[in-house]
């Protein structure tokens, strides 16, 4: 593939602005999220937030590669815009929340962060006692994410990948400073197996997202990739093991157990199969893949470079 046309400064500004707006939209949701979380004790917050741990973890561990072809030596530089969408299942829109101790019923089904309206319940024997869960923050069947990604290589058939988004603090306690970053390294296996008809590589990726003091996410993924190019089409796939953890830190106003709450939520995905294809269009390429694990998610985007 030929080297990319340079993105003009105006284009870079457009890119930066778009990512800032997209990220700001996400960060604005954090205000509502924090409002909702503060009302919860730890156990209730876990159920409310578990779907976002599952889906965000799956998204973050997506989109790192679009081919297994890595030359042993030579300059490789590509800039990708990667979008990910995880599918929100119906089961992830509600959860069995704990009612206050002694309430009858002891648990009730109400909205998660992806649900709609919170449920109000009445005590079975004292009907004037009522309790309600908060509404969901996201009204969607898909949970998206987008990141810019840079890939640099090749040294002994090795490439390095980085993704980064920074959102400055906006206002006082409205949108906290947030940053998302990820790094990865891929190594060609097929360089050691010159006779095989496909390209093989292995890779490991680590990423982090931190937003104020509320959210601290980390993810790790490693696996093997395979690809085969035919003309301008590259078919690619892979098997990966992964883990992700979303940590929440907030101060609960629950009158029974007020105070600082620290919870740690593990993402549901631990293994995934990826299948996708990319199209080389001169100085750019477009790519899309599907990822199957406990969470189904899709990634796709556009890349510039060689």
């Amino acid at each position, binding site marked *: 593939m030929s080297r990319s046309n340079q993105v003009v400064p105006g284009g870079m500004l457009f890119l930066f602005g778009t990512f800032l707006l*997209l990220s700001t939209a996400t960060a604005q949701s954090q205000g509502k999220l924090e409002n909702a979380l503060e009302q919860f004790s730890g156990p209730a917050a876990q159920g409310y937030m578990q779907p976002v741990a599952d889906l965000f973890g799956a998204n973050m561990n997506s989109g790192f590669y679009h081919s297994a072809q890595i030359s042993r030596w030579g300059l490789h530089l590509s800039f990708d815009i990667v979008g990910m969408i995880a599918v929100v299942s119906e089961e992830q829109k509600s959860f069995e929340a704990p009612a206050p101790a002694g309430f009858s019923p002891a648990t009730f089904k109400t909205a998660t962060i992806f649900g709609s309206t919170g449920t109000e319940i009445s005590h079975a024997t004292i009907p004037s006692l009522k309790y309600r869960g908060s509404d969901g923050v996201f009204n969607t069947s898909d949970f998206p994410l987008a990141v810019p990604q840079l890939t640099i290589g090749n040294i002994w058939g090795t490439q390095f990948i980085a993704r980064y988004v920074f959102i400055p603090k906006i206002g006082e306690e409205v949108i906290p400073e947030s940053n998302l970053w990820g790094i990865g390294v891929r190594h060609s296996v097929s360089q050691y197996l010159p006779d095989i008809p496909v390209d093989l590589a292995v890779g490991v990726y680590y990423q982090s997202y931190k937003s104020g003091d509320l959210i601290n996410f980390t993810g790790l993924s490693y696996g093997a990739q395979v690809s085969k190019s035919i003309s301008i089409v590259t078919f690619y796939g892979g098997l990966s093991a992964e883990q992700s953890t979303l940590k929440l830190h907030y101060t609960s106003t629950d009158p029974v157990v007020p105070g600082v709450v620290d919870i740690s939520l593990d993402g549901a995905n631990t293994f995934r199969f990826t299948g996708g294809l990319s199209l080389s269009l001169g100085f750019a390429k477009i790519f899309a893949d599907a990822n199957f694990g406990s969470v189904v998610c899709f990634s796709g985007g556009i890349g510039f470079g060689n």
Partner: protein
Amino acid sequence: MKIKLVLAALLIMLLNTGSSCINDSILVAVNLPISATWSINGGNNPNFSESTQVTLADQIDESYRDKVEKARYYDIRVSVAGAYSGNVSGTANIGLSPTTSVPLLTFNGSWDDFKTPQSLLGSSPHITAQPAGVAVLVSALSSFGNNPAMVVYLSANGSVSQTPVPDGLTVTVEIFAQVDAQVGSGGQ
């Protein structure tokens, strides 16, 4: 040029997808604790009678005060603090004015019983809710959305069983309530 259009379309799609999925406004069930603590004077008088004025809006974060809609309560607790070996009994009252209080609940038991909060949800045998006061409480909570300046008057009168009464004894009544606050695009 076509690539730039594809890029723009992709980014706008992602932007729209990312922002449009956030609910414009949501109802957050905000904790509204209403409580009053009254001291029992030390000495030879076993009786106590105290009152407190509680402005509901002061019990929640300032950012929610103009967004309150429906409200409800889910428990009432009575507890004591201080070292005492006798019994305590009395009535907690509630009113929408200082002169119109009605009984919210009665309480009766040993002082030690109340060292652990006695609650409606815990089916405590030591407290009994009174329908008249519960009706006033529900009325106050129901009116809070339309009247952000809503004030309730809590009072307690009762007695302890043994004199002299040591210094430092207190009785606390806590009403655990929630208000639905509309947190929207015009809010936070």
